[in-house]
């Protein structure tokens, strides 16, 4: 009996109850987030191979990767891919959101259509792009040929720089809807009275955008672009379907190279190290958005 009352009393305690309610979420987080992340980081410090547990080797994997020209190239590719694609996605997404925020005919339908690229599974849209960029069957090359604008098919994925830009184009196509719809949601939270007041003060459309829209949208932009950068930085499927990192490793991102080394190549430790090497960059992106873009003073139109 005394046991039961003890339990009942404990359950009456707010702190105990709170912890208890927190438990399922904490277990889920530990099990599915912290543990794999921790294991991945640990593996990065071992020489684990597939089918063979590794020994602790300290920073050897990182030294190895630092001296590896392909790994360094993949770092460059990833940064280039992320920066260019994210900027394009932001500009196009914002533009699209501003357009969709206007009173257009068929507004609901247009908004639904804009979301389409995001709904299609990446692997499927990647296959579509694979045909679009095909060296022999590209619809773009075919059209331009028929129009007499080019005299040979464009080597979209066969030339290193073409391949980088082509994969970025595919990534932007897929990522713009996410940015656009989120920013659209943000735009709709801005009260029309601000614009009314601004126009009464004689603000031009640009001034309205610069001093009303942009500051009020910044918190959303920060969140959306953080996610966008994270998704782009860790992109895998698109590259894997389109080029497998080729030609000449010109489109290998850290994620694809990590998979190639760890799973296809069996060097689990090295692949894990490569994946772990992505974390500082991702953290930097998060911290930048947190400390940079979330500043209240800036959001309210003032300077620091």
């Amino acid at each position: 009996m005394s046991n039961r009352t003890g339990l009942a009393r404990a359950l009456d305690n707010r702190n105990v109850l709170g912890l208890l309610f927190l438990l399922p979420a904490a277990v889920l987080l530990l099990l599915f987030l912290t543990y794999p992340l921790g294991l991945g980081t640990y593996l990065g410090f071992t020489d684990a191979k597939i089918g063979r547990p590794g020994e602790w080797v300290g920073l050897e994997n990182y030294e190895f990767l630092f001296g590896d020209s392909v790994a360094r190239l993949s770092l460059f590719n990833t940064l280039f891919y992320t920066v260019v694609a994210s900027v394009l996605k932001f500009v196009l997404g914002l533009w699209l959101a501003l357009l969709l925020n206007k009173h257009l005919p068929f507004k609901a339908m247009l908004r639904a259509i804009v979301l389409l690229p995001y709904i299609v599974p990446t692997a499927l849209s990647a296959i579509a792009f694979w045909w679009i960029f095909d060296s022999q069957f590209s619809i773009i090359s075919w059209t331009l040929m028929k129009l007499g604008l080019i005299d040979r098919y464009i080597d979209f994925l066969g030339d290193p720089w073409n391949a980088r830009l082509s994969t970025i184009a595919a990534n932007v196509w897929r990522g713009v809807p996410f940015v656009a719809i989120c920013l659209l949601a943000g735009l709709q939270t801005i009260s029309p009275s601000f614009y009314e007041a601004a126009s009464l003060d004689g603000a031009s459309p640009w001034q309205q955008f610069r001093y009303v829209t942009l500051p009020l949208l910044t918190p959303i932009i920060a969140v959306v672009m953080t996610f966008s950068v994270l998704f782009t930085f860790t992109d895998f499927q698109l590259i894997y379907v389109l080029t497998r990192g080729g030609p000449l490793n010109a489109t290998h991102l850290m994620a694809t190279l990590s998979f190639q080394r760890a799973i296809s190549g069996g060097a689990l430790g090295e692949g894990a190290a490569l994946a772990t090497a992505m974390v500082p960059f991702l953290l930097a992106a998060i911290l930048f958005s947190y400390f940079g873009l979330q500043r209240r003073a800036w959001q309210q139109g003032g300077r620091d």
Partner: protein
Amino acid sequence: MSNFKRRDVLKAGAATAAVGPMIWVKDASAQWSNQPEKGAKLRVLRWSQFVQGDIDQYLANVKKFQDKYDVEVRVDRELWNDVTPKAAVAANTGAGPDIILSTNDDANLYPEKLVDVTDLCTYLGKKYGGFYPVCDPYLRPDGKKWIGVPLGVAGVCMVYRISHIKAAGFDTFPRDTDGFMKLCKALKDKGTPPGFALGHATGDANTWVQPLMWGFGGKVVDTSNKVVLDSPETLRALEFVKELYPTFVPGTLSWLDPNNNKAFLDGQISLTNNGISIYYAAKTSKDPKIAEMAADINHANMPIGPIGKPSEFQLFFNQMIFKYTKYPKAAKEFLRFMMEEEQMNPWVQAAIGYVTPALTAYEKHPIWTSDPKHTPYRDSMRNMWPSGYSGKMGYASAGTLADFVVVDMFAEAASGQRSPKEALERGQKRAERYYKV
């Protein structure tokens, strides 16, 4: 083929070899006795078929096995590139399919996780003329213990348009690399270029650059796994490909495995390297224009380099039983059953020559002669050199192959991104990183 189908199957668990007329003489000492565990259930993971007939007949054979032994067998399929990571995960975690049919040097990555199948391989070898020697480095690394049962290879040959090489002045396909170079140049001049994958095409890129490298006497490692890629022989192979590349259709640097099939069937290239699937696709196409092309397609073995003997590289298929299985005997019995001629013959037939079996007796299979265009694929196992030649297989060879070290080296030299010498030095450095351990 009906006589194979009609032939009686073995009695359950019988300790004798099959009776009845054989298409080859077998060793009478081939003995087998095994009894599957009671209530056994098996899960098999294999690569998904390249040709429909393969899987249809495979599943028919599986059904025969189920009916005969009352062992439930579930067959899962994955793209062949995806089986490798799944098998690795199974080995790593100690759970997964009982039997995995996978590719290349996979078995060498986790030999201690695999059931010893020496008894089964000895039996099969005795009965069916032995396995080709190239199976040893893949599945009998110490020369004694079999860690998997060789199944065969997806043979890769030169696939060409008869009328196009005639127009280029060749009545037959050249046997050596010199003639091959001349042919490619002539084809290019006639406006019917060849095309060979130089992108990250695991199958189609490796199966033409590795034979060329070996054919010129180059190799990644010597027998003690020391990297010897940077050699005058490899350099000559690179210079050869650099000279060859301008004859290709544009865009081959981006090619993955399916590209050459598409380009060939569209008539954009007249010569490439591939399995028998292009011919098969043309033959069974509903498009009359493509079906007509089948008559104009023929095959030849890969050209022989200055070393004077074939040096082909093929996609190797193994069959592994994992130690975590609860039913090792049933698993062995399953593999034996599938490898017996009663099942193997119709399967090889149904796969229309896509798979060249690892047992030499199947050289006499009618598939290779019923259509003379199949014949080159018969020799795919005989002409083949092992992955990571001439070293030992393991993480280094698998890593080098998976990281496209050799393919990238050839692609760099061919495209002029680097001079052959620079590409070679870089290839040497990259290979050394893998073989360092």
